[in-house]
């Protein structure tokens, strides 16, 4: 007898023959079939340890095939097979459906021969293999693999949205721009961010002593990286972003541009102001795109955005544990995906992912770090912190917590509800004149996430954070919380120097043993 009985179903003759050759050589008893319906007949007579099926097939696809086979096997009380799906089209929708099937493994073609053989071997090695799907593909590969796969699929899906260009896409730059209105208009909100490229074009329009992230965003705009956008909404949160708007609409060739005015204090005036800014945005979108945005559309959009926020908050909450199942690098990517694509699909996929993530046992080595400050969207800083012995478990950043924190009230008067959310409920950024409120909320995060040290990251020339830092440092230090300030540029940073400073910081943490217990603060 061979290593196990395998049924291979694929309508592509070339794939069929290639896998057939490989598995027979490895000693498996193989049956090959080129369509799902025929497979239903075959399994009535033969018990297979493993059934490998293609996903996209005419008439009867891989998912239908699996469901039907399971039904037949259950009714006939015959041995249950394990399943593996192989596909060349891994979009988010498919991924959702497949993940609900609870199969052994999902692989994307073309795949590495060794990984494929290894997966089959492991599958058939399981003693109870003939009795069911004991080892599902989530368990086999752990949280890291599940999350990485999610990121890969969703990235692919978001990319495809741009290429296929079904719905209009509106760019936005700042977490105070209400995505709700973009969604209510029937568009896809897409956050514009800079890239790790040298600044050259944008120097013509913005001076060198301005925040390098803004320069980098403009550089990408001038480069044509955002030519797929149907318009751009720039949140005027600082003196510089207002000029980013001017430069973008003057020189970056965009059909529709709008500056969204953002107040700077958390008071009742700010809510009036913000509400007016929303109304202005609605008027402008309606006028330019000849559309109508109804209250109902806005209410629905509020609920969609809230859903995303709840899911991301749920994922972030897992990082409060001693051994966070999601890495900071993964969390960054997931937040970026939330900001650059269709929220409905993202919500479904993320809900599914959350169902699958399992708590990690034990305790992760390293000092628990809160990263706060300026815009930050690059994994390198997280890598550096990790390599120095820190684990970033929470980021008070506009690309993370400050993006998804705080829900909007659902129900009547959705415009006011949105205004209240952005002014009252969302975690504040330093672009508000609010050092005290910011320090207080940072202390809450420090407690919740059991933080041992804070790394305060400032992008060069980013005024709100430069001005805020002395007050925040004073309050946190007064509460016994170690704070390290580092300064970088979005594109060019001497990583070595930053690393040395972080290493030295970790040494001070070591000597103070602030690992799990955060100093209490009665301030």
């Amino acid at each position, binding site marked *: 007898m061979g290593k196990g009985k395998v049924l291979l179903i694929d309508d592509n003759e070339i794939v069929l023959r290639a896998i057939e050759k490989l598995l027979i050589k490895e000693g498996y008893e193989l049956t090959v079939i080129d369509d799902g319906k025929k497979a239903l007949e075959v399994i009535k007579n033969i018990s297979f340890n493993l059934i490998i099926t293609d996903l996209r097939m005419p008439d009867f696809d891989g998912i239908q095939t699996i469901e039907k086979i399971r039904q037949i096997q259950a009714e006939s009380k015959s041995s249950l097979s394990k399943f593996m799906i192989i596909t060349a089209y891994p979009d988010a929708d498919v991924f959702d459906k497949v993940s609900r099937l609870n199969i052994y493994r999902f692989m994307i073609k073309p795949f590495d021969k060794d990984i494929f053989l290894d997966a089959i071997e492991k599958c058939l090695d399981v003693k109870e293999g003939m009795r069911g799907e004991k080892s599902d593909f989530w368990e086999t590969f752990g949280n890291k693999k599940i999350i990485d796969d999610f990121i890969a699929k969703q990235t692919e899906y978001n990319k495809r949205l741009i290429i296929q260009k079904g719905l209009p896409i509106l760019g936005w730059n700042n977490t105070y721009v209400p995505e709700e209105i973009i969604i209510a208009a029937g568009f896809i909100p897409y956050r514009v961010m800079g890239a790790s490229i040298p600044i050259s074009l944008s120097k013509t329009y913005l*001076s060198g002593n301005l925040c390098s992230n803004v320069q980098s965003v403009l550089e990408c705009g001038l480069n044509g990286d955002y030519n797929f956008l149907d318009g751009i909404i720039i949140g005027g949160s600082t003196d510089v972003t207002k000029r980013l708007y*001017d430069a973008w609409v003057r020189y970056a060739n965009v059909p529709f541009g709008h500056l969204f005015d953002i107040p*700077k204090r958390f008071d009742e005036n700010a809510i*009036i102001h913000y509400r007016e800014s929303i109304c*202005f945005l609605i008027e402008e979108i309606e006028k330019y795109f000849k559309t109508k945005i109804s209250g109902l559309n806005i209410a629905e959009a509020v609920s969609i955005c809230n859903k995303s926020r709840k899911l991301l908050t749920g994922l972030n909450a897992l990082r409060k544990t001693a051994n966070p199942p999601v890495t900071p690098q993964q969390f960054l990517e997931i937040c970026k995906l939330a900001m650059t694509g269709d929220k409905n699909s993202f919500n479904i996929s993320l809900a599914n992912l959350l169902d699958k993530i399992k708590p990690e046992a034990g305790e992760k080595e390293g000092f628990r770090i809160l990263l706060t400050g300026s815009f930050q969207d690059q994994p390198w800083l997280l890598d550096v912190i990790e390599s120095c012995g820190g684990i970033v478990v929470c980021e008070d950043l506009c690309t993370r917590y400050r993006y998804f924190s705080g829900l909007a009230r659902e129900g009547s008067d959705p415009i006011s509800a949105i205004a209240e959310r952005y002014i009252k409920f969302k975690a504040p950024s330093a672009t508000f004149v609010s050092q005290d409120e910011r320090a207080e909320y940072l202390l809450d995060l420090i407690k919740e996430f059991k933080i041992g040290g804070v790394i305060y990251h400032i992008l060069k*020339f980013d005024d709100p954070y430069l*001005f805020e830092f002395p007050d925040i440092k004073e309050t946190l230090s007064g509460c016994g919380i170690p704070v390290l300030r580092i300064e970088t540029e979005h594109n060019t940073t001497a990583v070595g120097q930053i690393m040395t400073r972080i290493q030295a910081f970790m040494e001070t943490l070591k000597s103070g043993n602030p690992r799990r217990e955060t100093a209490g603060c009665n301030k």
Partner: protein
Amino acid sequence: MFANSHLTDDILRIAEDNNHSRDTCSFLRGTVGAVINNYMPMPDFLIATSLYCHGSAQTFYSLSKKYNRPFYYIDVPYDYNRPYAIDYVAKQIENIMLKMADNCKREFNINKLKTAIEYSNQARDYYVEVNELRKNKPTPMLGGEAIDYAIMLAHTFGCKEMVEICETLYRELKGRVDSRIGSLDEERHRILWRQLRPYYTLAPLEYLERKHRAAIVFEEANHVYWERMDPEDPFRSLARKLLSNYGFGEVQRWLDSTKSFVVDYSIDGIVEFAHWGCRFLSASTQMLKDALRDKDIPVLILDGDCIDRRDYSDGQIKTRIDAFVEILGRKKRLKG
């Protein structure tokens, strides 16, 4: 004030030692240092607006906590043309004035406000005339003298004394214009000055004017951009004044006014002293340069700091001015 008296090195250093970055505006950093060093009198309250820079509001907020004094903030919408804007700002001004009076244990007297607005209007009218006279050739007043009026204007409009100062200045310039007395023996070029100046030295302005005979005939900071106010509608008038600031709003608003100065004051070139820490002013500089390209107006940007003299290089600044004046001369010769 501190820069003129060379106390700045000390106050800037103390602020920097207290975590205030050298990349921030030295006006604000210096204020913090002066407070730390106890050079400032205890305020009754602190007030800031959202007009211009974000850093000033953050600094004043922070100082209000240190002094344990109230912080008042006027939020001026960037969308200055929106129908709600005037009433929105007016209401805040009114509320703040009432709070200020309360805080100082005084009764709020609307008539005093009306009188201040009346004085402000009178001073404004003279100053508008002053700016009109400065369009004359030869210029009746040099930038080296005029630029510091900008600071005074910002602080003293509404006082009776300001009316007298503006009237005296107007009469003086009127006399010079009527008698065709120029400020320089020869006026080779006419310059528009953007932003402020280094307050520890007048050297760049004097070098331009005295050595090269390039007269600074107008400074953006001295522009009277607001209309007369209505004393019977004081809060809305003040709101209108704030909202009409052309430095606020889309960059085109600013560029349009700069272009109009170029025409009105027969400008040959623009010099900007780009204060290092000011994002608000720096952010429009390059776009202005670009917009003036089609007008064939050379723009010289002198990077520096209004307060912090530690990195000031007299020689470098003079070399750049020499090269700029050379360009102006060449252009003039080409035009014949």
